[in-house]
């Protein structure tokens, strides 16, 4: 090992930091009031639900200020709330850990969360179940905050399951649509696979270290065998794959777009899906010592970042393009997390900037859908029905453009700094990985430019009866704030602030020089992105866009078909898991029906068959009865004779 594994050794929380529990309690209170209060809270519930996260955000900011005022080696605090589990040798306290890593997450979750609550006031204004929506959003925030503030894997798991529940409830929020109900179920089931990995990891950690607390495990990780740590790492990765929609558990994220758009922005772009990255970075003491697991993380990350990007190129549904892009960007974060101490900080940095620009673009997409609502009251998501919207929705267009420039990594925008750093680190680590990451950046440029051209430029392809209009102020203000964050988010990197701030968590990285100079990496990245952008312009900017997707043709036709089918993710799942699973259940049912039931009912059936045969003896003919009597008498006589003679 070229560096020390950082140990979690927090001090007791005091002063402002003792308000830590309140950060979780406020949204939890909101959810409780709105869900228990029922219709009484219909009129003001959404306002309360928006005010509480803003309160949490205020506390988070105050705590960050307090933390920044402390020396770097004193920036981990723990707050013991109560003893949660105390049985046998398992002692788990409801402990909250506040350190630089959680502090950044806290700001992202409460900050972006508050803005999205604000936006939802406008977006969900006419929904009859608005109160319930806000209650679920608050529930989500409370669970997500528990996840990032947990001091042990068990408390983390509580939040982990909580966000899964909230995600399920919100994907299926419009439950009257069968597609939404099915998507919610799909997300829930695929997440169960990942959760199984995480729960096994917790059990293994308990068996190995006798505790599930980060403090104990990080201190004892050095003494555990590498095999154990590798298994632990792989199980944690499985959990992370489920929550973060990484290959092979990626199939749920595209369907999750059935939920209301603010949900897609908050849960399926900015926060919840990044929980997997958080888990890997938080468990750095495991991954640092398990090189195999780390390599697997990198492989999964690279596959996902290309997978998501390719899907993003072929979708006509604006939200699905953004969802594919989210998968791809989380792949970048995972890549950073898999690169070890050199990449952790950049993974978190990209996570934050992505949280800004992707939430911005999702909300922008929601604003467009809102504007494109047809006479049937359904928001249109098909980009082939958009076009030339930049004049109709100027504010949304400008803010969306900021997000666009940020995600493709236009120099100076936040995404440029974060993605550039990731590619640079990847190149320094492994040339193949670095080149693939670079390729992913080019594809990002392509599909995002395609989205921009289809939506904002070109000719009008609006449906009959659609009259686009700018969204109300309550929706555009969050867009403006997030756009500003997308532009200036890169400032966190100034003077290497974010890396040095996260150092107590991620450990000190030994810097590897990439094979080419750093400035050359930046130029190369921008050049590759430019190729993608120009490619998209040649295909979609120069000529009219057909209103129905053209048939795939030519040599690359199969690639288009594959990408339109999500690279056959569902088909693979069906073939490898669903089909065999159904076959096993069918076999079990048949075994039960024919073997087990056969054994149990066979005896009685045999007796019944015997009786059926036996009752034929009662034929009602007196003479046959007489024959039986005579035969019997003969037998008795012969028996008597035999006895006498013998």
């Amino acid at each position: 090992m070229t560096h020390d594994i950082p140990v979690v050794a927090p001090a007791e929380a005091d002063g402002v930091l003792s308000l830590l529990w309140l950060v979780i309690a406020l949204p939890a209170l909101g959810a409780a009031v709105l869900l228990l209060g029922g219709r009484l809270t219909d009129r003001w519930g959404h306002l309360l639900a928006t005010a509480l996260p803003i309160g949490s955000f205020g506390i988070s900011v105050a705590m960050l200020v307090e933390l920044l005022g402390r020396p770097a080696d004193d920036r981990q605090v723990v707050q013991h709330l109560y003893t949660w589990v105390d049985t046998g040798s398992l002692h788990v306290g409801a402990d909250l850990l506040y350190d630089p890593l959680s502090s950044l997450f806290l700001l992202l979750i409460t900050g972006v969360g508050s803005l999205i609550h604000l936006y939802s006031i406008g977006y969900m204004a006419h929904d009859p179940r608005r109160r319930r929506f806000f209650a679920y959003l608050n529930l989500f925030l409370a669970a997500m905050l528990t996840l990032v503030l947990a001091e042990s894997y068990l408390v983390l798991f509580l939040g982990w399951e909580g966000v899964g529940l909230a995600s399920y409830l919100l994907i299926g929020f419009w439950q009257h649509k069968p597609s939404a109900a099915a998507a919610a179920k799909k997300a829930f089931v695929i997440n169960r696979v990942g959760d199984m990995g995480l729960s096994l990891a917790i059990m293994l950690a308990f068996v190995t270290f006798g505790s599930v607390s980060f403090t104990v495990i990080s201190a004892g990780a050095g003494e555990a065998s590498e095999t154990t740590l590798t298994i632990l790492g792989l199980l944690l990765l499985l959990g992370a794959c489920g929550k973060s929609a990484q290959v092979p558990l990626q199939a749920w994220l595209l369907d999750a777009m059935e939920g209301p758009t603010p949900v897609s922005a908050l849960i399926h772009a900015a926060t919840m899906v990044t929980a997997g990255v958080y888990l890997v970075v938080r468990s750095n003491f495991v991954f640092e010592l398990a090189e195999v697991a780390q390599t697997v993380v990198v492989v999964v990350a690279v596959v996902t970042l290309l997978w998501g990007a390719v899907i993003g190129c072929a979708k006509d549904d604006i939200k699905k393009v953004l969802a594919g892009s989210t998968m791809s960007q989380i792949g970048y974060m995972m890549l950073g997390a898999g690169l070890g101490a050199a990449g952790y900080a950049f993974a978190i940095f990209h996570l934050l900037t992505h949280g800004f620009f992707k939430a911005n673009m999702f909300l922008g997409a929601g604003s467009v859908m809102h504007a494109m609502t047809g006479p049937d009251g359904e928001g249109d998501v098909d980009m082939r029905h958009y076009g030339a919207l930049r004049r109709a929705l100027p504010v949304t267009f400008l803010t969306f453009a900021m997000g666009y420039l940020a995600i493709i990594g236009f120099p100076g925008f936040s995404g440029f700094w974060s993605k550039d750093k990731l590619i640079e680190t990847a190149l320094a680590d492994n040339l193949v990985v670095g080149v693939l990451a670079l390729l992913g950046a080019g594809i990002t440029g392509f599909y995002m430019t395609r989205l921009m051209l289809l939506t904002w430029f070109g000719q009008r392809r609006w449906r009959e009866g659609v009259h686009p209009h700018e969204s109300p102020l309550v929706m555009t203000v969050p867009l403006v704030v997030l756009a500003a964050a997308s532009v200036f988010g890169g400032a966190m990197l100034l003077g290497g602030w974010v890396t040095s701030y996260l150092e107590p968590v991620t450990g000190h990285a030994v810097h590897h020089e990439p094979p080419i100079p750093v400035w050359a990496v930046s130029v190369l990245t921008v050049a590759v992105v430019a190729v993608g952008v120009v490619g998209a312009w040649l295909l979609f900017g120069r000529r009219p866009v057909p209103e129905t997707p053209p048939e795939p043709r030519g040599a690359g036709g199969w690639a288009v078909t594959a990408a339109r089918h999500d690279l056959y993710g569902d088909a693979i799942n069906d073939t490898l898991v669903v089909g065999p699973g159904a076959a096993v259940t069918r076999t079990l049912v048949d075994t039960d029906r024919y073997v087990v039931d056969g054994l149990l009912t066979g005896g009685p059936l045999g007796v019944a068959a015997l009786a059926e045969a036996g009752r034929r003896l009662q034929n009602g003919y007196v003479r046959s009865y007489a024959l039986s009597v005579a035969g019997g008498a003969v037998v008795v006589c012969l028996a008597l004779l035999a006895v006498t003679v013998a």
Partner: protein
Amino acid sequence: MDSVTPYVVLSAILFTIGCVGVLVRRNAIVVFMCVELMLNAANLALVAFAHQHGNLDGQVAAFFVMVVAAAEVVIGLAIIMTIYRTRRSASVDDASLLRW
């Protein structure tokens, strides 16, 4: 050969005739008569053996058989009459309602 043997042989022959008659004939009256034949074959054997043993046990038993047979004839004929009246048939095979 013992002096009792011809009686026992006759008794056996009569019993066999009666037994075969019961088994093969269908007319209830004939079956009934065959039953009487078997009873009397038994009586003959009883009396013959009583004579051989020189006591009255067998003869008393024969009287009991006659009494029982008389009672049985009364009831049996009454049943046959009733069946004939209701079914216009005295065949034992026709009265086969009590079966599976």
